[in-house]
Structures are given as C-alpha cells and as structure tokens.
C-alpha cells in the first residue's frame, strides 16, 4: 500500500449535505490529503478560503444562502481572495443545461456528476494536476479557458444532445 501523504496540500469541500461532505472528506483522506476543510455553503466557504487558501476546492452547486455558482464567481473575481486561480471541481446532481452552463461561465475548472465514484473524482483531480488550463481574462469572464482541448480533427459523434436529451431550450 502506498503511504503517500500530502502534508502541505489543503482542500476545501463546500457541500450542504452532511452525508456527501463526509464521503468526499473520506475520499480525499484516502488519497493522502491531510488538511481538508469543510463549509456548508458558499458564504461560509469564502471565509475558509481567505483564511486557509486551499489548493483545491470541491463544491456542490445548489446551496443556501450562497450557491456554488455565486461562490465560484466570487473566488475568481474577488480582490479579497488569495488565489483566484485555485482549481474548482463542481460536484453536482444537476443535469439541467442552463445550470451547468452558468457554472462553467462562473469559472468552474472541472465537473463531476453524482453519484460519486473514486475513479471519477481522481480522474478530475489528475486532469487538473497534469493538464492545468490557461486562464482567460476579458470583460465578461475570468476563469479557466472554456474552449479547452479542442480537437480540430474531431468530426463527431457529438454527445451534447444525448447528455441533455430531455432538457429544453427555455431561457
């Protein structure tokens, strides 16, 4: 058994459901991350963020009073944040397209759909570590490049409609 521990790495879990929070903490601990901080919504998370400056954030989308989208935007744009480039993995049960797009446009680095699997979470973290994306700053956006890893030779099949097959175009 590998006994790797990461004494200096800090992770922040932002999740209002205590069961999911416990599960995520256990997974990060199994990975060897010792400093795992928790918050149950975006407002509390921002306090932890300023105080601890985590290296990785796992956040839920729907939380009250401050949800994961507002929190992500705050992380990216606030002058009060020690590291606006911190990787953010959004873990969500939402499959509604408009919510996923809003999260992407707020500056989320990676998405992980529930149910949580060890492989799924570890793959997202590996992606962040191995292939950090450029950040883009413009009038309307600051965050990881949303046009990422585009394969110019790829001609399909396109999965987007299948992924959101019963979503609607309503705005």
């Amino acid at each position, binding site marked *: 058994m590998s006994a790797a521990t990461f004494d200096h790495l800090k992770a922040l879990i932002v999740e209002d459901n205590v069961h999911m929070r416990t599960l995520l903490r*256990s*997974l990060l601990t199994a990975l060897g991350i010792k400093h795992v901080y928790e918050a149950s919504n975006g407002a509390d998370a921002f306090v932890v963020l300023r105080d601890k400056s985590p290296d990785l954030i796992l956040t839920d989308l729907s939380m009250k009073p401050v949800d994961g989208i507002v929190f992500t935007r705050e992380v990216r744009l606030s002058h009060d944040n020690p590291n606006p480039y911190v990787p953010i993995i959004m873990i969500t*049960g939402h499959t509604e397209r408009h919510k996923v797009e809003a999260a992407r446009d707020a500056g989320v680095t990676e998405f992980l759909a529930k149910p949580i699997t060890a492989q799924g979470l570890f793959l997202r973290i590996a992606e962040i570590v191995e292939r950090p994306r450029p950040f883009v700053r413009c009038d309307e956006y600051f965050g990881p490049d949303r046009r990422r890893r585009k394969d110019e030779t790829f001609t399909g099949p396109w999965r987007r409609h299948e992924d959101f097959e019963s979503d609607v175009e309503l705005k």
Partner: protein
Amino acid sequence: MTGKKPTSPHKRARATKIPPGAYPVFSRKTASHLLHALRDPEITATAARVIASKVEDMRVAVLGYVDRIEEAARAADVVTIFEQAHEIRGLAGNAGLTATGRIANGLCKYLDVIERAGHQPDQELVALHLEAIARAAHAEDEATRLGDTVANELTVLVDKKLTEINDSARRKPGRDAPARGA
C-alpha cells in the same frame, strides 16, 4: 467601396490568456507524487471501499428525504418537493438506489422548467413521481425489478410535458425567431 474592412456588428471582446506557470500551479514534485497516488490501484480500491461502506448510511438518508418529500406533498409545498427531490437525486446513486435517483432527477427537471416557464405543475405527474420515489426507495431490488421500468415510463411522460411547454413558449409572440444556429 473604400477598401476599408467592414466592421463586425458584434464587438469582439479583448481577452488575455494567462498560461499555467504564469499563475500558481502544483509544483513539479507535488504534481508527480499526487499523480502517482491518483493512479495507484490500491488507493483507488481503498477509496472505492470507503464509498461502499457509506451505502447503508446513504440509504437511510435517502429514506429520510423520502419522508420529508411526502410531508411536503401533503402541504402542497412545491419548493420543498423540489429541494427534497434534489437531495434524493444527489444521494441515491451512492445509496445503490439508481432508479430512485433517476425518478427524482426527472421530477427535478420537470419542476425546474415549470418554475422558469411560470406554469403550475401538473399535480398528477408530480404525484406519480412521488409515489414512484417512495416505492422504489423502499424496494430491495429497485433497480432491477420495479424501479427501472417505472423510471423509463416517467421519463417519457416528463419529456412529453417538457416538449408541450417548450412548444407553447415558442408559439408566444416575440418568441418566433428561429432558434440559434437554425
């Protein structure tokens, strides 16, 4: 013609690209150790066992949310119905209740669209979902026997309702412009 380049009606936003390294990333040593751990099959197996060990707790939690959604239904409290259905869809997969999660997800999708469209929810459709969630969550073999069939049927119903709502939204004055990319 003046030879001047025509200007686009859409002003192009000026963007600055900041490459990794120009902003703080994991050090080479940390990245290497972390990747090693992330790809270690023993660590992944340990993490998978952690998830498996939580299944029963998750199942109990889901049943708690099922009780709450039934209370919300009795009070006709649509907001709470959505919130509890959202909790159920979030946990059900890790509770081994995949069909319950699918049914709850269908209900969330439906209620989300209804709310954005400013419509009243179809009480019968909501009631069907709630009954299916309760039955599936309590069934021992919900994914293989009852749940999946019911989830499939309800998905068809929800899709039909969403199409109706979408069509009616498109027919409204001012919404007749062709869809983007059409």
